[in-house]
């Protein structure tokens, strides 16, 4: 076909003869995931004669957003696009974003089978604006050998913060450039969400119930941040500058423990270190945090919307979901995937992944899905960073951040 007919999704012609529909799906997958999406769309196209799905790579950095915004502004959005969860609230404001509520309500979708955290992020003000595309969460990854050397027994599911702190300090050895823990210290969402997990574990919450006030400057917040402060002061934390070097450092045996997700497995699993996976240590509880992303459908006419929904339904069906997970190492987005026959093979293929899947049930809370959240995150990220760099006290940092957040929340949008 010509160059433009296969692009972005055009407005009209693709529904042409015989009710055949061409749709495009934009993704940022590379490597195994890229192979997987190619394979699975081919499989879909083969089994669905009147729909052709074309996957297109749209970048894998934040720049991808600009491509999507351009496409939307140009009136030619893709039919389906992979979009980060943090964008969901803003994406919802776009008139061409399809409200999928009426589709997923159908029992055949079994909507509640998607993990809670994923459903939360797909829902903006009661409207369902996306189908979960990815779910992950944080668990504790540790270097077995370093634990052994330090004479510490491996972490358990009942580990407390105190256990964690002790272990981290023991694993630290500046002369060997060895750190107990790693923390992403770029003040981005990477910095913030690990803090949220701790906040929740200590019983705190991000915002007040009505969403109009900051609530993280609670004793729980201070407690969480104090843990970071203590470890940072003792040089027990490898402060990652945001380039995700921590996986490499861990893989070369310089870090005792990571709080990370399944996406890092392939980097860690280079054969040089023996690693174990455990759920996060806890304070009041062992909550974790999940960062789900969505497949968003844009309206290019009902025929294409229908086709897009049909594809997503197929693509996120339990069987295909597990297939995807097995091919890529991503976590299954449906709870029922764990009950399928192939699940064991999946867990076996990716050592440790089972912990993350189970840990999803600890991901009970979500970050607020609001348009102001990115700003809130930035403010909190700086607060955390200032403590990690020893520039501020936890209380002081959080109070200051809360003040700013309150300003953000009260500003007219």
């Amino acid at each position: 076909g010509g160059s433009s007919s296969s692009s972005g999704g055009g407005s009209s012609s693709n529904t042409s003869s015989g009710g055949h529909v061409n749709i495009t799906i934009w993704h940022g997958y590379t490597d195994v995931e890229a192979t997987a999406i190619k394979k699975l769309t081919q499989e879909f196209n083969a089994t669905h004669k009147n729909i052709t799905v074309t996957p297109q790579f749209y970048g894998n950095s934040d720049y991808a957003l600009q491509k999507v915004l351009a496409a939307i502004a140009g009136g030619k959005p893709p039919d389906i696009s992979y979009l980060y969860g943090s964008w969901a609230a803003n994406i919802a404001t776009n008139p061409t974003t399809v409200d999928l509520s009426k589709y997923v309500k159908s029992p055949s979708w079994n909507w509640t089978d998607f993990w809670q955290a994923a459903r939360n992020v797909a829902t903006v003000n009661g409207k369902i604006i996306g189908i979960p595309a990815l779910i992950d969460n944080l668990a504790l990854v540790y270097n077995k050998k370093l634990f052994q050397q330090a004479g510490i027994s491996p972490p358990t599911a009942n580990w407390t913060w105190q256990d964690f702190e002790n272990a981290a300090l023991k694993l630290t050895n500046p002369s060997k450039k060895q750190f107990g823990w790693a923390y992403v210290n770029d003040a981005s969402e990477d910095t913030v969400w690990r803090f949220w997990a701790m906040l929740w574990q200590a019983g705190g919450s991000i915002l007040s119930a009505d969403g109009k006030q900051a609530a993280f400057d609670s004793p729980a917040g201070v407690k969480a941040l104090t843990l970071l402060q203590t470890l940072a002061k003792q040089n027990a934390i490898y402060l990652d500058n945001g380039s995700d070097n921590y996986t490499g450092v861990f893989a070369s045996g310089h870090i005792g423990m990571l709080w990370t997700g399944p996406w890092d497995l392939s980097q860690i699993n280079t054969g040089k270190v023996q690693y174990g996976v455990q759920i996060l240590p806890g304070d009041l509880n062992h909550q974790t945090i999940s960062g789900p992303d969505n497949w968003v459908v844009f309206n290019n006419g009902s025929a294409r919307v229908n086709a897009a929904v049909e594809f997503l339904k197929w693509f996120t069906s339990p069987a295909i979901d597990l297939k995807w997970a097995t091919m890529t190492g991503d976590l299954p987005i449906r709870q029922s995937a764990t009950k399928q026959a192939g699940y064991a093979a999946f867990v076996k293929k990716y050592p440790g992944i089972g912990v993350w899947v189970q840990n999803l049930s600890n991901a009970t809370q979500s970050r607020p899905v609001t348009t102001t959240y990115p700003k809130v995150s930035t403010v909190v990220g700086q607060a955390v960073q200032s403590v990690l760099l020893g520039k501020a006290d936890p209380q002081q940092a959080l109070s200051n951040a809360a003040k700013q957040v309150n300003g953000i929340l009260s500003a007219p949008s």
Partner: protein
Amino acid sequence: MTATAERLITLDAPPAKPRRRLPFSPWHLVLAPIALIMLIPLIWMLILSLETSPESQSFPLVVLPSGLHFHNYVQTWNAEPFGDWFLNSALYSLATVAGNLVFCSLAAYAFARLKFFGRDVLFVVLLATLMVPYQVLLIPTFLIVKHLGMVDSVGGLIVPNLCSAFGIFMLRQFFRTLPIELEEAARIDGTSRLGILVKIVLPLSLPALATLAIIQFMWSWNDFLWPLIIIDTASHAPLQLGLSTLQGAHRSHVNLVMAGTVMSQIPMIALFLIAQRWFIRSIAFTGIK
């Protein structure tokens, strides 16, 4: 015999060198360390590109790879559709280089030598287009290209980049250093303004044109964002965009990426080496008192 003289004259070394105490020019003592510092990225990329995937991902860097894994290059070269990417990049780069050389020369000459109504204001207006951050221009530019029906085509890459205020400004500055007498002589000899530009000004500006060509080539060749915005189909992508599909957010094969990057730098390095001959004084500005 005289033909050889013409070529050799440029190599005639300046006379009266001071007595040498070193077996080599002392400039090497200055230039060699600088060169080393400047070569760090190339060395670094070469090392990474020859490592195994885990080696290349380890941190701190594995400086001595376990072996020279040249198959990284083969593997990258075979990545689908590497050939298309390369071709698209070549097309994009060469076309924008040609466009800039032509359009910028024309405009720069007018700004440098012709007095026309509104010249200075127009010049500042053109310069002003360099002053708006590209972040706010991407989307409207996309809209225009879409309007012209050039989305997802190499043409859409090329056309907005055919001429830049950068090139105009740079060439204007260079043109204004040329001896005006030569242009006057050419006018007397019956040359049109365009003829003067083509036959007198441009041949005397080869270093500047080579510079513009190198820089524009480099920009187009390394361009990532604009292709990302307007290209949808993999086979229409230029090299940098194509290579980015190898470079996942989390699971990247740094070795393959670096192999690709090294390969993608080869044309730029080649062009630079070719253009070098224009950085040796090729025309002595004599014949004018």
